[in-house]
């Protein structure tokens, strides 16, 4: 009884909040470009007073956003190389798992927030294209060409992926990489803030945020925005570094994180401090259960989480119903 009352209250709160935010975002911008307008940023003065964490340090919220921006501006060039070095290439497997769990179908629209260098979006497009080709091969017996019906079906089932990131340097690197790989159609690159997305309500089938949400200053706001831009029935998926439960693995992981990763940052990217921030920010992120609670508070249903690599990474998933 209490649980259903809680759900009802949450739903009401969500509905009223949605009215407010959709009015605000309707006023601010509908184009692909997102600049903070005065109407949408009435909280900016309060942000100077509220404090949050930047790694193990305490800073004001406004300060955190600036410092995080600087970190990613500095690391953008060597971002992919460092990911491979730090995770010994395992980050590719984590992202592959995300896609397999997602199992997107042709025609799906993806929004990849904090998408940076575009790893998820590119994988998504490859996945749906592969699915489409499999379907076509199954449906069309060999020897026959595609009919008029097939071609119009294809148009309707054309998937698209939008990569949204607050950092222009990261988007630049991502676009260059995608161009090099020849992945161009169906992919767009948008500058935007996860706490205030430049998109209308009910736009996307899938919202992903991979290794980005811990850098967002107000995670609750980012979750609410995610809920807003998803279509009803849409899925929210989050990959993030989380808590390792096994004590032996945890000790090894901590030692590796604090002893080796900043050194790798210094040697490969010439930047110790950014990678020190990275390992500290991982420790400040809520654990699997806490983040599940945050998602439920924002209004997501059927929230689940899977641990990868012993809890080093957690995959959280929830639906907008």
């Amino acid at each position, binding site marked *: 009884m209490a649980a259903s009352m809680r759900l009802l209250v949450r739903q009401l709160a969500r509905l009223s909040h949605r009215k407010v935010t959709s009015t605000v975002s309707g006023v601010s911008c509908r184009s692909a470009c997102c600049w903070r307008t005065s109407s949408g940023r009435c909280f900016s003065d309060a942000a100077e007073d509220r*404090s949050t964490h930047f790694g*193990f*340090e*305490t*800073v*004001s919220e406004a*300060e955190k956003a*600036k*410092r995080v921006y*600087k970190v990613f501006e500095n690391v953008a060039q060597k971002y992919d190389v460092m990911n491979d070095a730090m995770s010994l290439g395992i980050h590719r497997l984590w992202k592959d798992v995300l896609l397999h769990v997602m199992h997107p179908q042709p025609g799906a629209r993806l929004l990849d927030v904090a998408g940076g260098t575009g790893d998820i979006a590119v994988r998504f497009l490859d996945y749906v294209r592969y699915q489409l080709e499999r379907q076509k091969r199954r449906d069309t017996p060999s020897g026959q060409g595609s009919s008029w019906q097939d071609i119009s079906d294809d148009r309707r089932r054309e998937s698209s992926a939008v990569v949204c990131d607050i950092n222009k340097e990261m988007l630049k690197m991502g676009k260059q990489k995608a161009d090099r790989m020849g992945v161009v159609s169906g992919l767009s690159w948008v500058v935007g803030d996860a706490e205030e997305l430049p998109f209308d309500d009910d736009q996307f089938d899938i919202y992903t945020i991979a290794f980005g949400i811990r850098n967002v200053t107000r995670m609750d706001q980012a979750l609410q925005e995610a809920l807003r831009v998803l279509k009803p029935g849409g899925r929210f998926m989050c990959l993030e570094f989380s808590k390792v439960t096994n004590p032996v693995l945890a000790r090894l992981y901590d030692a590796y994180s*604090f*002893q*080796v990763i*900043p*050194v*790798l940052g*210094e*040697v*490969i990217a*010439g930047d*110790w*401090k950014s990678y*020190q921030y990275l390992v*500290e920010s991982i420790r400040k992120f809520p654990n699997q259960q806490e983040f599940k609670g945050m998602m439920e508070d924002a209004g997501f249903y059927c929230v689940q989480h899977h641990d990868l690599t012993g809890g080093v990474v957690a995959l959280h998933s929830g639906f907008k119903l």
Partner: protein
Amino acid sequence: MSTLCVHRLHTGRADRTFSHYDGLYPGHIITTPFQKALLAVGSGVVALQDPYRHDMVAVLGETTGHLVLINLRDRMRNDPEGYTVLTERPKIRLSTLDLEKMASLPDGSFGREYLRFLEDNEVTPDSRAEVKFVDDEELAYVMLRYREVHDLMHTLLGMPTNMLGEVAVKWFEAAQTGLPMCALGALLGPLRLNTRRLQSLFTSLGPWALQNGWQARCVLSIFYERRWDQSLEELRRELKIQPPPVDFTKRRKNGR
């Protein structure tokens, strides 16, 4: 600027295990011995692959040079002029140099020749990496001074900033200071030279650099900032440095 804002919020926090803002001096990053070892290996590998990663050469020097830095600091203390350098802590920066005055000095003076070196090789004294991994404030200054004096060594030795010139200066510095990073650079640098330059190194430049390195006065003990108007020849004689066997000034600079 943002680092300054952090400090204001942050004073009084001395108890953090991973204090990465201001250890003993601005830019100091506290590291465990394991991290220093890892840094030494990593920076060595990268510096070898890409000698133009000056930050890696710097890190290699800092993580391997502790004992030698102590030795250098003691030599400076025992020299009256060196002691003055240690107490007054001069820094060679564009902001502290009076470039106009130096340009007006006569040819052949130390200051004029140093300026000529900076212009010819298109370098500035501000491009030195800051010291990060030395865990003693005075030794960090000695390291910084060594880096700043490196360009002056080029002038004093008459060496250009191409690979051959750099290796020659490294041989001199290795003989002078004994810093492992210099020795390593001296040993491995020649691997990147072509045969003609290798020949020049081993037959004339190398032995000259080593000889001068051993017999010269400690180059870190000189208060260079007060000697701009001194004649280069006279300064060389005072430091017991012989002029180079090959004159590079007339040749076209190959650029970095």
